[in-house]
């Protein structure tokens, strides 16, 4: 069967997906802490050295980090609360839940919440992200994309190419059936509402990578998690 890329390319892509989705998933999951900020400084330094992609999210992140002498944790916590928790100077925000973006009344815990619960149950896993309680939270979905990529990478490493493509097919189904359905719009709202370039940068990175991912896999058969079985 023909796929959108070779097994070698899939292995490289999966590693990239795993790291990008894990990073953005953690950045959206709760307020920045010392650990995250240290990683951001490292990323910014590496980016500045490579001097690539000057207009993208990593460049914006690097510029933000460069402006900060100390870890701006309070500033980021205020921005997090205002942007994602609905607490702040505006009563609009970027609410990080698929239900909010896919329901008529823009509420928490709608059909998407049920669907995400079903996805996790089908995979026999439970949400364990600190400060994230809803299964359709953006961090849950980014974590699941990272998990798929991690499994693909692992299976390819074991030489199970068919198994890897089976998981990839399921990942594509989830990417297009859930993540792409709302996260780009969510990221657009983050860029509109956030006060700091930190969250605008994270939104840029997440959104741009999702778009890339979707464009790469275009035409590839996809499976739903329940049909594909546990990865």
């Amino acid at each position, binding site marked *: 069967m023909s796929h959108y890329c070779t097994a070698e390319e899939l292995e490289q892509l999966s590693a990239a997906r795993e790291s990008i989705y894990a990073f953005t998933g953690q950045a959206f999951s709760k307020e920045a802490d010392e650990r995250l900020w240290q990683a951001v400084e*490292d990323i910014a330094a590496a*980016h500045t050295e490579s001097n690539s*992609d000057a207009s993208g999210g990593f460049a914006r992140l690097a510029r933000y980090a460069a402006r900060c002498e100390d870890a701006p944790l309070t500033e980021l916590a*205020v921005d997090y*609360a205002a942007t994602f928790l609905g607490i702040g100077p505006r009563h609009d925000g970027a609410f990080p839940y698929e239900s909010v973006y896919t329901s008529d009344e*823009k509420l928490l815990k709608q059909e998407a919440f049920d669907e995400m619960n079903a996805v996790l149950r089908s995979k026999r896993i439970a949400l364990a992200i600190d400060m994230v309680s809803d299964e359709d939270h953006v961090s849950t979905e980014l974590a699941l994309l990272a998990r798929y990529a991690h499994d693909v990478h692992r299976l390819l490493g074991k030489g199970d190419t068919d198994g890897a493509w089976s998981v990839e097919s399921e990942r594509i189904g989830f990417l297009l059936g859930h993540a792409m359905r709302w996260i780009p719009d969510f990221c657009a709202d983050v860029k509109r509402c956030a006060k700091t370039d930190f969250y605008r940068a994270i939104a840029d990175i997440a959104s741009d990578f999702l778009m*890339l991912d979707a464009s790469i896999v275009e035409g590839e058969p996809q499976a739903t998690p329940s049909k594909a079985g546990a990865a």
Partner: protein
Amino acid sequence: MNAVSRRSFVKAMAASGALATAAALGYEAWKPFTALAADDAGSAQTEGETQVIRSACRNCYGRCTINGIVKNGRLVRVEGRPGTYSEGTICSRAFAIPQLVNSPLRVRYPMKRVGERGEGKWERITWDEAWDIIIPKFKEVIEQYGGHTILANNGTGRDQLNISVLQKCFYDMGSVGGFGVGSICKIAGDFVQKTTIGNPCQFTGWNPEDTNLIVMWARGMFSWGYYDWIYIKKALDRGAKLMVVDPRHTAAAAKSTMWVPIRPGSDMALILAIINEMISSGRFDKDFATKWTNSSFLLNDETGLLLRESDLADGGSKDKIAYWDEGTGSVQFWDTVDLAWSVDDPKPALLGSYDVEGIERRTSLQKLADAAAEWTVEKTAETTWLTTDQVKDAIELYIESSPGTCFTRGQKTDFSDNSSSVSHAFTIMMALAGNYEIPGGNSVKPGTSTKGSALFDAVPPKSAVRQEIEANIDDYSMCPGKAQVYGIRDGVYSAATHALTTGKPFQPRIYWGMNCEPIISCADSLEVAEGLKNIDFSVNVNLLMSPSAELADIVLPAAHQNEIDRIEYPQSGHCWPANHTATIRQPFTEPQGECRDEVDILFDLASRLDIDMTWKDKYDWFNFALKATGMTFEEFREAGEFVDEITYGKHEKGLLRKDMKPGFETKTGKVNIFSEELQRFGWGGIPGYREQPQSPFSDPDLAQEYPYVMLTGGRNHQYFHSEYRESAYMRSIRPFPVVEINPETAHENGVEEGDWVCIETTMGSIKQVAHLTEGIDARVVHCDHDWWFPEKGAQDGLHGAFDSNPNAIIDNDKVFDPAVGTDNFSSMCRIHKSPDGPPEGIFTTPEELSAFLSNGQEDQQ
């Protein structure tokens, strides 16, 4: 891989390359998921299952019984529940429960303010961190300034259990109150009724079954608890009549037999006119008046109180009240301890004055008759802006229908300089007409055998600090010597407001706000906001960020009322059988985020301050409260409801008093036509008319410049005071505050339907949208109350708190009943078309109004 994908591939690799240094943030280090065990019940939990959970709505005082439809553990919708008092009826507020439960705007975590007050800068903290800030501050203030400098406010009376716990917790730390709901709501009137008839029953005691006439006085029947109409309709179909006394042609007025469009604030004139006609024509229930009221008790003009045996003879008892006995032709006594007459076959004289040791002594009823005599039909008509025919017809309908008339009123008559006297007058009007404790009248003690709300704050132990304050209340009070009849000490928000802004008589140091929005709901909103900005420390427990929450130091997340357990009690206006039913309110779902039941939060606060709350937790207390029903709370949950049958003539059967003696639970054991409590603390022992401080009659010069009476507080289907302005659903139905204007008045001021209008008082100006209606007098306008605009930022006038809210332009010093400390919700005003349209920054288009919950781009979804 095609060319496009190839380019994307390269970009993806480049992007991820930046993360090469961030292994600590890799997927394996993160561990965002755990594996479900093979036998994990959670994996199959309720998938696809739909549960129907019985509960009650708490979005108004109606407590309609509802079912929550819960699928996969999430609330899908709410339906009315047939087979109970509310017969399956619900309104938009209940339908909107899932919207609020699942709103992403909810406060779901403890928050700490990190910017200036009102700047809107917050950060999330843990509950432990919150307590670590709160508790030391409480201890410091109690030690340094005393617990009386702590203000506590539960802003709605809909959760009586919550109020009881709040009172217990804060009174025992020494607090003397705060912005109490009482002076906003009906509780001040309740306390007057407790002193005059023993129990509040003007709102809730009515029974349309077998009635001749239903009197609804200033009450919006179709705005809260719609099911009342079911019982009214049955009565009307049977031939009963409905009289609605209201300045506005409300939905209730539209269904009435007689609409009495009284001038705002002049209610007392019509009540006294009814009383005058009853007494002067002899058409009142003399038997009830003789046996069960203190009509016959003689007055001592020297003391201003009732005449006692101790006034007449050395060694006489203070507990024995003199009356003139027509059987013996002599002074005899009513013993207020034994509840017994001094002769076997008493024949108390109701009217007249009698020579007692050389001094003429009037009976209480005679004093009332003398005072009421001036309220002729003509004078009443002139005062109330009614026609003489309307006054006559109202009087005759009431008298001819009694005994057998039931009565219910709204809170509006409490917002008066003469609130206590009006409440007293209503009691007398009903008592003299013989309308209490009979079929078709009012139950004096509506309610159930469950006692939770009445017990919590009444049961010992009381802390030593509390006992010291209660023994010396004037030393600690924010309004010493005033509002003594009001049982919640200093629950008067103008007193709290002034203390905050002036430091007199002392400076409050901590404010704990719960279920409340004093900036929006109290008169002179700007002064309230200024006061809350100045306080040392402030905690706000809330569902959503609001103007006063923006001024807090810590905001704690409250669970939604349908995420917690409660026993729901009848109160505030609803008729039989609702007023004799306790019903279950239980969770549809778990609280969102880290939200907690306010009662649990208070138990936690008390525990951390070493306050003895008597019961270990709310369930311990609920079980105790339900003892008389023979059920535990879990059994009550299963049963769903508990209904007490109506018993008539409870005063004759000893069912109204704790000692089980016949009579009423007052200091005399009778309905007090003359009230010694009100004589001591109010404007007088019998009701009398007082013109309101701001009216065309009392201040004609002001009326030259501000010619219209601004009435506020009318209810509507969408909002409950300050609530639901964030709801896209409610705002789509009633998007703007509405000012009702008579077309004649509108024409004179160049205003047309739908115009934004400036309403101006001496305090300032607000804007509302004009609705022209013949259903309001040309000299009156009615403004929607408690408006704010969540779409505006905290920095933008605390979410537009002063743009359209009439409380922003009402003087909180104009009205103060000395007995119960009521406040003001009315003013004189002028109007003109807004030169610049709506308030700046509010949502006005459908597209904008749909944006409360997300990005305002619904059409792009």
